[in-house]
């Protein structure tokens, strides 16, 4: 059988899925958890507790306040010791709540029974309300509030749901392990999302380098009518929303538009399982699976981590920081950003921590563009990265906008493939945020 994939561009980085055979295990609950109030795209949540308050695990501590925002829940039980500004992964200080852990007492409404509950009792509105209450955001890394994504705008109609189990980033294996170990919950989560959207069809896209996940879910899918599994050819960045839609149902998202234009909604595997937990078990989002890996790491692993756990705790759990470490990356090596400090807490959108040894972390020496057009060939959005990067460097934001900089998905294929080692994505990313600001100010 010919495997499907997206047509335009793409690269083949070394997969390095070192931790794919490691079952998910629970990370220790941290002594103090730092919970940022802005873990999602949109307005930061509003803090509804005060210093000195006792909180239980799963209790709402900050409420999403505007249309695009998400609730934040306490990941541990204990006392709120500080509401202050704490360092985030870029080194800038953002508002966060510090909780000192005392035991682990969960709020009573959470159903802690391990038995899988397959019957969907809730109505469409109730499901979306529960997703909203539980503070679920896109767990693939984009952290867009899920309840907003599930509310199909008027005049548009969704006809299918795509579950993103591609995990095309090298090194990361958290979605892979979730599919293998919690396949049934994933299927039920997908059913819940289908009910909420009112669609009959769902596709789960998985890259062909995860045969165990494909087999397991194909077997399960016999019990869940309407859900089909699509093995896909391995190619980066297949996990991008637009690329996945193209690969599975061969529809193209128009430039500057949302995927709903093509009639489908894409949700990550982690998000689907979080939705299952929220709707069936009443459990808000306060823990997630994080891959801790790297070639020099002693025990690469997949950990179920409470939000707010410092990264240093995760690295300790993976056998300590190797001596030749040069860089610790938040996310995968293609799209992730190097961390400024190891005290940074885990947030909802953090899918992995990759430790890079000295010899791999170095960036190539920058030389001149030789006009080989490799970046143009590999760009999955059909852009001309060399041109946009040049405009970004010259701060010509308007011209960069005309070259469709806003369509860039920041996958990093251009920088990866550049034989001159040019920092194409670095330039584009900064200019993209500038152009975004310009567009927003124009709308006002």
């Amino acid at each position, binding site marked *: 059988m010919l495997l499907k994939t997206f047509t335009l561009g793409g690269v083949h980085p070394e997969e390095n899925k070192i931790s794919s055979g490691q079952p998910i295990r629970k990370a220790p609950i941290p002594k103090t958890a730092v919970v940022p109030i802005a873990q999602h795209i949109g307005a930061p949540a509003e803090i509804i507790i005060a210093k000195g308050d006792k909180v239980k695990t799963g209790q709402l501590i900050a409420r999403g306040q505007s249309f695009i925002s998400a609730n934040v829940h306490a990941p541990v039980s204990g006392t709120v010791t500080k509401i202050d*500004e704490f360092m985030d992964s870029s080194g800038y200080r953002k508002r966060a709540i510090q909780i000192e852990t005392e035991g682990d007492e969960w709020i009573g409404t959470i159903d802690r029974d391990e038995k899988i509950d397959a019957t969907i009792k809730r109505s469409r509105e109730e499901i979306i309300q529960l997703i909203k209450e539980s503070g679920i955001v896109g767990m693939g890394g984009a952290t867009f509030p899920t309840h907003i994504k599930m509310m199909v705008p008027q005049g548009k109609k969704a006809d299918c749901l795509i579950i993103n189990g591609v995990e095309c980033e090298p090194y990361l294996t958290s979605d892979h392990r979730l599919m293998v170990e919690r396949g049934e919950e994933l299927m039920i989560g997908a059913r819940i999302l289908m009910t909420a959207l009112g669609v009959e069809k769902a596709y789960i896209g998985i890259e062909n380098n995860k045969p165990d996940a494909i087999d397991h879910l194909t077997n399960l899918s016999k019990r869940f009518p309407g859900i089909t599994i699509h093995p896909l050819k391995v190619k980066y960045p297949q996990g991008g929303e637009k690329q996945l839609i193209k690969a599975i149902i061969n529809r193209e998202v128009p430039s500057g538009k949302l995927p709903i234009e093509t009639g489908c909604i894409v949700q990550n595997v982690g998000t689907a399982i979080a939705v299952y937990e929220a709707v069936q078990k009443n459990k808000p989002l306060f823990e997630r699976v994080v891959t801790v890996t790297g070639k020099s790491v002693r025990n690469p692993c997949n950990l179920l981590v409470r939000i707010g756990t410092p990264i240093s705790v995760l690295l300790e759990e993976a056998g300590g920081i190797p001596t030749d470490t040069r860089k610790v990356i938040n996310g995968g090596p293609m799209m992730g950003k190097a961390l400024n400090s190891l005290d940074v807490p885990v947030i909802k959108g953090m899918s992995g921590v990759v430790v890079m040894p000295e010899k791999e972390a170095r960036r190539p020496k920058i030389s001149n563009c030789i006009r080989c057009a490799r970046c143009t060939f590999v760009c999955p959005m059909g852009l001309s990265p060399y041109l946009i990067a040049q405009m970004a460097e010259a701060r010509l934001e308007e011209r960069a906008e005309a070259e469709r900089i806003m369509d860039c998905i920041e996958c990093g294929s251009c920088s990866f493939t550049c034989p001159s080692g040019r920092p194409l994505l*670095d330039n584009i990313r900064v200019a993209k945020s500038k152009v975004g600001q310009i567009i927003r100010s124009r709308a006002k």
Partner: protein
Amino acid sequence: MNSAIIFVVATLSILGLVSAVILYFIARKFKVIEDPRIDQIAEILPAANCGGCGFAGCRNFAESIVKNESLDNMFCPVGGNELLKLIAPIIGQEAVEKDPMIAVLRCNGSFAHAPLKTTYEGIDSCFFMNALHAGDNGCPYGCLGGGDCVIACTFDAMYMDKETGLPVIIQDKCVACGACVKACPRNILELRPKGKKDRRIFVGCVNREKGAVAKKNCEVACIGCGKCVKECKFEAISMVNNLAYIHAEKCTLCRKCVAVCPTDAIHELNFPERKKQVVETENKEA
């Protein structure tokens, strides 16, 4: 033969005459009246085209002086007051003396004062560094050391000090055009009055974090303790968001604030050495 020559000469002469008449009337009709004073002023201007006056270039500056026939809010930082005195008679105005300005660096987070915690690898420009992270020394307000200001300076008045990682302003060369101020993504550089005898006092820090947090990253940060505000009798120092600011127009250069600052965040430039220190040492000896 002869007639042919006469014919050619005659036609060309008539043609020339007719064209001259047409050109004369066209030239009168579309005459561009340019004030000769613009040229006069433009000739005296330094022709650096630095943009420090706020106009696109020196000629643009000259044009708008003549157009408005006044020197209000017009100042060429390169030429300074002397230049203004030369321009004034051309448009028949009095030159109003202005305090000459100079750029100052309001950060002292050198490698020694604010040790590096990380190593940045990427595009060597403050503009990009600022967008990506807080800085290698952890201070989200301080100098990033990328040298955007040095590149922006067209007067060779700045250089990066490799020992400290901070830019240095060569006081004799700085003309206060403000190019570095615009180039700095963190607003660390500021144009301040040159002051009497070139003496200046300013707070060498722009960190608005709480004292303890700021101090953790940099030992010479302003911690917002407020001692200088209490010490100043002239109300020249204000404290906003944990950061002291000395208002140059009220400052009398008494240097009392410098002495009380617990973190040495207040800088004094071009002052003679302190007498007080001598007194102290004498006391100790006694």
